[in-house]
């Protein structure tokens, strides 16, 4: 019998934009135009700087304001735009995190509404560099924070998905045994393997029907979750 549902964040609840799109979205209104491959290269440089300089920092410090600014600086160096570099960096820094999130996927609101109406406790397990509090603030901004009794970011732990300890930690916060929890995620190797290793039921969100895992239950939209829950008992 399923008595609680835990969701993955990005790719499941929240639609994230690729970094190159975000760069363009910020810079284009400022009058800068570059070909798509230039933004892609800039985004790659930004990621590379993070990997090389900051990946090894203690958790909780890996995406501070200073880190973000330095990584965005790497992107600007590749783009080599004319103008006041400090102002460009300030603009990117100011808007980056907010524009990275493109909203909720279709099907999320009906799913959360139906589960809440059935008094099913819900949680979120996020693989992100931001803290659990920041994830909660983001979900509040998106208008769905109230649905979640527990929100955990891996950045506040010592583990990464698919470590089963993460999945058990969220179930504990919802005060439900793992055998009564359904996990919903879009990543076969991290979400489904992790949840099943922890002893949960797991459903893969496969919006494009590209599933290549015959042994996994999948849905194409979160709107299918409430009905699926009935079939799981």
């Amino acid at each position, binding site marked *: 019998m399923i008595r609680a549902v835990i969701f993955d964040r990005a790719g499941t609840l929240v639609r994230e934009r690729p970094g190159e799109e975000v760069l363009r979205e910020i810079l284009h209104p400022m009058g800068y135009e570059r070909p798509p491959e230039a933004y892609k290269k800039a985004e790659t440089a930004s990621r590379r700087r993070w990997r090389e300089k900051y*990946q090894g920092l203690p958790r909780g410090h890996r995406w501070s304001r200073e880190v973000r600014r330095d990584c965005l600086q790497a992107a600007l160096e590749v783009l080599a735009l004319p103008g006041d570099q400090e102002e460009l960096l300030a603009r990117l820094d100011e808007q980056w995190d907010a524009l990275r999130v493109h909203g909720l996927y279709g099907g999320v609101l009906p799913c959360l509404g139906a589960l809440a109406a059935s008094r099913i406790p819900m949680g979120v397990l996020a693989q992100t560099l931001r803290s659990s509090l920041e994830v909660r603030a983001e979900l509040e901004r998106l208008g769905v924070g109230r649905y979640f009794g527990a929100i955990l970011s891996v950045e506040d732990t010592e583990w990464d998905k698919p470590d089963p300890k993460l999945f058990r930690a969220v179930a504990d916060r919802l005060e439900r045994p793992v055998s009564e929890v359904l996990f919903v995620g879009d990543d*076969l*190797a991290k979400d489904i*393997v992790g949840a099943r*290793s922890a002893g949960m039921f797991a459903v893969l969100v496969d919006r494009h*029907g*590209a599933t*290549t*895992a*015959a042994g996994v239950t999948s849905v194409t939209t979160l709107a299918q979750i409430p009905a699926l829950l009935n079939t799981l008992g």
Partner: protein
Amino acid sequence: MELTREEEAVLRGEGGPRKQECMKILVTLGEMYGARKLLPIYSVQLSGISYKTMGSAGTEFLEEMAQEVKFAVPTTINPAGYDVGGPGLVRTSDDFRSKQDRIVKALMTMGAVPTFTCTPYTTDFAPPKGAHLAWAESSAVIYANSVLGAYSNREGAPSALASAVLGKTPDHGLHRQEGRRAQVVVDVDVSKGPIRYTVLGAYLGKLLGRKIPYFRGVRPDLDGLKELGSSMSAWGAVPMMHVEGVTPEAHLQDVRGLERIQVDAGVVGEFQRCLGCDENPQLVAIGCPHCTKGELIQIAKAVKQKGRKLKPGTELWVCSNRQVIQETASAVEVLRQAGAKVIQDTCMVVAPLSDQFPVAAVNSAKASFYMNKKAFSGQKIVFDTTENLIEKYL
């Protein structure tokens, strides 16, 4: 890019419009990835030559190419959509056969070598260490880079074809030492139980994407490396791997400070359970990638030990290439006597089988990836070890 005078002339169209088109493809790619020059190559491996993958537009394009150009270097080819040079063990429609035959004819006209295999490294066309290649078959690319010490990017169909015509490839990515460096350390803990390389590869392919891993804690043999690499390249886009104490460039890697992933039998076992369903297959298919001599002999041994024939209602396919089949004649005979079909020139992935065999059992995570994919075959997959498949269905 700095082109030679000869290359410049081809780019201007002096070698004809087809060669010019090919040069434009290579130069565009080279400039996109920061190559400074074109490199001469030892060989090309073309993938996607089954009509199932190529379709009519691709076939017509190939036929037009064949009227004007020849391949400049040895060009081996992937499996076709049916056993084109075999005894006709694979049932397909006449229409499909005639379309497949047009593709084969065009390729032969241009000078392709009729290997019809995804494992060209098990044939006389295996490249030497240090050879530059333009191979498109992902499982062969990772094997060539990691095990043979050859150099190849994962080419797409158009770039591999262009390279075959010109005998060149842009000098970037895996052709350069900096493009071959390990990017993540994978520590495999086998203390909690055995780990199947095909499943480990699939799991890591999902996690790694394009990153080059450096493995510690495992020592796969050549067939194990083939399994590990082919799954990683199908489920991800991993072009090369280093295995400590095993692969030829592992000792050159500095892995200090790299991202680290730990894997054990628990997560890999859970991933394996994701791969298959529990239904009755009409087809049991082994040999993705095509069986090596060692694998074929092992399967024959297991079948011989079992001492029984195939259960009615199920077909057993063992897929390999012409050369391996010829060189393992007695093992092949054992399999045939047991009722198995030893299939050459095609395989369970690229032959159009979903109508005949809606449920198939496989031992390969690479096969599972493609056969289960809705847009490709959409078959239901039973996933198990070779030994268990033989135990259950013989």
